[in-house]
């Protein structure tokens, strides 16, 4: 449906004039969103009260269902309807003739266009990135609170319940509102360009998936305002704790639904775009590795994300409807939550890593001026990780009391994942080998990722082994491991990607000196913060507890001081981004002399990416190979087509 209008490029009109007076209340926008939120809240409330009245449940007014349905489901739907995310579909559903596409919702002419439903994948990519950086800062501040509390033994600033809320919301924001959507944002911007496509396959669905994100993020943050405090069962939200804990858990359970829906819709869009909209000549074996990475990630998202949605539904039903899915006293299987949750959340660590692998492959090849080593194996190892990733979930549950026979098979599959991951690490090293290295900021982040991720991968092998895992379960060793793979791994690749594509997205160059300063501050601060956690973890300091034994006091003070330095390094990043976006020197179309298609157009690219769809003639990474071409555009494309004919 949404692709059909591409077949009518002759239909185009000027953007509609802005509405005035009472019309403004009816025109899509934040004004309409306000009254529609109130309206939809009323509908949700009526639904809850009506059903409770008919079913004869007492009391009629019960907070949990009102929160879950009226506040966290229908009110956000009202917001989406208000800003106009559903306008086209409502129009279609009412049986009106399909509107000719006037592209008025496409592209950005002023900053205001970033605050409305926009169908341009480049605008959506920037929307994603700015939103996720906002939640990254919010989540980072929560981590600063956690470290302030842990600087000394005993309880200083927060009571245990608040502290539990702080680290739970920190982790949830960083995972669901930063790492996963930041990758989606980068890919949104770059993948259609790399494929030689004018946009994503479903631009309106793309816009909708973005607008679900702020809803999920605000939901998580606002859980602090609820009497009883934020959800405090960790980002894993294990039942029965999340079933009996404060009503803040409802905010987590619903926010995950919104973020998950956003994730699934984006992944569908990527898959369809990659399969059906590749430029002529762009076979699967000529796709850049970033596209490959997002292809496998999207498959993971589509297959696995329904499981976390279901796990949160069950926990929500147990709380709101009084069902017995995870209530052991009435026949529920309490470990079921963990099985279903980790069946998503283990593949989710690859959802949080594979796109980063793609970014690093781009950066390392371009900055080493060499073809990527073992291109096909790089792509196939992504697929191998995808399949193996579904067979390892119970390694998060070695101490949970699950069936003992599950342990060894899960340990073996876990260790097996080191093989495809090792292939990738050695391929990157071989790519760097004897290359003409350009130590620009993106390359520094990519190299930092390579070394830090290997450390995180090695502690992962430790944790995959049953005996060591039993010893270190729920200690700071696990905290160190997850931060080495998610911070040293995913976050470093996100920064690599942001710096690498910054000139493409903004048309301006960032400050190289500040970029390098940002890298080194982060690199040192990161290691000073998280490396000692291995030591105190092995000595047995438990995670997720507000207080700790006095013998860990010195290390914790050191870690807290280092973490504040790490937090401060973000200021350099934010200053560099904002200042360079506003005042940086103009960037050329291809400052890195890269071959992939996104660099063959202007910076920033024209609204519809290409005047004509390019012709792909070779592999994407033939750096240093004389006469090698990836794609031809413009005049050359016409000549090439003549030559082939």
């Amino acid at each position, binding site marked *: 449906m949404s692709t059909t209008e591409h*077949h009518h490029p002759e239909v185009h009109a000027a953007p509609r004039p802005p509405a005035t007076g009472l019309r403004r209340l009816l025109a899509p926008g934040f004004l309409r969103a306000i009254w529609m939120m109130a309206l939809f809240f009323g509908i949700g409330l009526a639904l809850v009260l009506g059903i409770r009245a008919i079913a004869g449940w007492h009391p009629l007014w019960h907070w949990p269902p009102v929160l879950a349905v009226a506040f966290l489901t229908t009110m956000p739907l009202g917001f989406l309807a208000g800003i106009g995310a559903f306008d086209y579909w409502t129009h279609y559903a009412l049986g009106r003739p399909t509107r000719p596409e006037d592209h008025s919702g496409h592209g950005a002419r002023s900053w205001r266009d970033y605050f409305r439903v926009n169908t341009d994948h480049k605008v959506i990519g920037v929307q994603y990135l700015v939103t996720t950086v906002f939640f990254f800062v919010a989540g980072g501040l929560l981590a600063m609170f956690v470290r302030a509390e842990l600087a000394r033994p005993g309880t200083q600033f927060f009571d245990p319940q608040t502290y539990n809320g702080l680290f739970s919301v920190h982790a949830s924001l960083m995972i669901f509102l930063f790492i996963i959507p930041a990758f989606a944002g980068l890919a949104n911007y770059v993948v259609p360009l790399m494929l030689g496509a004018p946009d994503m396959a479903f631009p309106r669905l793309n816009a909708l998936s973005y607008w679900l994100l702020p809803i999920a993020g605000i939901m998580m943050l606002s859980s602090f305002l609820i009497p009883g405090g934020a959800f405090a069962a960790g980002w894993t939200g294990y039942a029965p704790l999340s079933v009996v804990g404060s009503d803040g858990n409802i905010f987590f359970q619903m926010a995950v639904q919104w973020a998950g829906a956003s994730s699934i819709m984006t992944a569908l869009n990527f898959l369809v775009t990659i399969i059906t909209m590749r430029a002529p000549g762009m076979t699967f074996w000529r796709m850049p590795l970033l596209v490959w990475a997002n292809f496998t990630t999207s498959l993971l998202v589509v297959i696995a994300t329904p499981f976390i949605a*279901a796990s949160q539904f069950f926990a929500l039903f147990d709380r709101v409807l009084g069902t017995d899915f995870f209530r052991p006293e009435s026949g529920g299987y309490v470990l079921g939550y963990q099985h279903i949750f980790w069946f998503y959340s283990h593949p989710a660590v690859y959802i949080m890593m594979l796109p980063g692998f793609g970014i690093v492959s781009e950066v390392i090849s371009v900055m080493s001026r060499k073809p990527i080593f073992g291109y096909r194996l790089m792509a196939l190892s992504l697929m191998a990780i995808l399949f193996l990733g579904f067979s390892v979930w119970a390694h998060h549950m070695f101490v949970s009391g699950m069936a003992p026979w599950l342990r060894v098979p899960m340990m073996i599959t876990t260790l097996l994942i080191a093989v495809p991951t090792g292939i990738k690490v050695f391929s990157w090293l071989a790519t760097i080998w004897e290359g003409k290295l350009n130590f620009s900021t993106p390359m520094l982040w990519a190299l930092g990722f390579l070394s830090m991720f290997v450390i995180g991968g090695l502690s992962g092998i430790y944790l995959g082994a049953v005996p060591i895992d039993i010893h270190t379960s729920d200690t700071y060793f696990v905290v160190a491991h997850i931060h080495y793979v998610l911070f040293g791994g995913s976050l470093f690749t996100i920064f690599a990607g942001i710096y690498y594509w910054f000139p493409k997205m903004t048309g301006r160059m960032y400050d190289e000196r500040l970029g390098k300063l940002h890298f080194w501050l982060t690199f040192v601060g990161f290691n000073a913060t998280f490396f000692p956690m291995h030591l105190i973890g092995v000595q047995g300091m438990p995670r997720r507890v507000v207080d700790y034994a006095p013998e860990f006091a010195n290390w914790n003070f050191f870690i807290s001081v280092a973490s504040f330095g790490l937090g401060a390094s973000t200021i350099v990043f934010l200053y560099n981004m904002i200042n360079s976006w506003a005042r940086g020197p103009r960037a050329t179309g291809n400052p890195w002399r890269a071959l992939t298609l996104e660099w063959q157009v202007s910076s920033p690219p024209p609204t519809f990416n290409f005047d004509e769809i390019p012709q792909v003639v070779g592999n994407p990474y033939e750096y240093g190979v004389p006469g090698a071409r990836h794609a031809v555009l413009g005049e050359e494309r016409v000549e090439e087509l003549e030559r082939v004919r």
Partner: protein
Amino acid sequence: MSTADAHAGPPVAHQSSRVSAPVLGMFLFIGSEIMLFGAFFTVYFFARVVNNAPAWPPEGLELPVLVAGVNTAILVTSSFTMHWALQSVKRGSRAGLQAGLVLTLAMGLTFLLTQMIEYTRVGFAPRDGTFGSTFYGLTGLHGAHVFIGLTLLTFATVRAFRGHFTAEHHHGVEIPGIYWHFVDVMWIVVYASVYLL
């Protein structure tokens, strides 16, 4: 290209697959839906098999296997009328399209109403042990999907009566149809495991 200004509209995207984008999107979405049902079946399996439930259904409870069986037959029939509607529009027969869609809608509604009446008479609630929870979980999830399917079919029906869809352009019938067939097949699995096994 007839446009004078090349920047005014997008270039026509190259179609690199024989499958059309919306159809592929619907199939991938169904894959995601199957996993959602998979999670509900997993929790059902945990409660019944892994937890060694002593009696399933518990003493004194009985499911209306026969009524639900008739309901199953109704839903399966609606898949055939849906197919008929699609074949009709492909042949260019608007009457067949309209009749097929209306019949499908009617049978889907009958199924949903029967299920709601069943809920009121079945004699237990979602909060009555894991049997109740998983029964309402699986049939409720499926019921929600029937509702979504019916909503999509309503849109298609409204458009069919307003003169949209032609023998060449009928994605608006085909795609809700694919979803409807999925809902039917999924019901057979739910019926077999919840009522029969």
